[in-house]
């Protein structure tokens, strides 16, 4: 049996996570659109842009794999990472992996006609994989919160 306070807090945070994730995923994708529309030319500002992308990717990946809310009590985090959430995470990782593989196949054909640098390829595959996993996770979580 868990305490009512923990339950209520976990419920509130879980709903907030389900609402926030699609927004974060779209913001993340939009940031990448800006990157690909103005490719890296070696300027100082480009290094900051790429660093921001790497930092955001690491944070999103860490949040997705661990469940996030690292500053909350362990009992609340345990509820936020319950069986259903873990199942949703596994499904979302699967979706992210498939999306990255499809993007890699598409990229292979693109390189037949246009040269793509290694950094650009990594950037694209990582962004597609993370964004798809986030969107899938958010979709599953939102559906789970919906009343029967």
């Amino acid at each position, binding site marked *: *049996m*868990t*305490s*009512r306070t923990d*339950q209520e807090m*976990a*419920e509130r945070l*879980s709903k907030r996570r389900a609402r926030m994730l699609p927004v974060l995923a779209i913001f993340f994708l939009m940031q990448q659109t800006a990157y690909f529309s103005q490719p890296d030319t070696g300027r100082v500002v480009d290094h900051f842009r790429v660093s921001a992308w790497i930092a955001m990717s690491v944070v999103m990946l860490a949040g997705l794999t661990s469940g996030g809310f690292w500053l909350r009590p362990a009992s609340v985090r345990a*509820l*936020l990472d*319950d*069986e*259903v*959430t873990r*199942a949703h995470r596994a499904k979302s990782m699967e979706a992210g992996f498939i999306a990255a593989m499809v993007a890699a196949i598409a990229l292979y054909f693109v390189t037949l006609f246009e040269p793509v640098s290694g950094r650009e390829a990594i950037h694209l595959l990582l962004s597609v994989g993370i964004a798809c996993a986030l969107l899938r996770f958010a979709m599953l*979580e939102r*559906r*789970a*919160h*919906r*009343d*029967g």
Partner: protein
Amino acid sequence: MAEALSNRLHALRTERGLTQAALAELAGVTRKTINTVENGVFIPSTLLALKLSRALGVPVEEIFSLAGE
């Protein structure tokens, strides 16, 4: 082999006058978990099935059965 699982979680819960949140608290899970199991969206593990059975005070077989049985 049957692939679907039927459950009487909603009926057993309402018989006892429990809300999803109250049952979640008794079983030590979230309301989301109760909701997904009740709706048949999620098939629980043995561990979760036993927690629910203990929280409701009934054998697991009374909550879950293979569809069509």
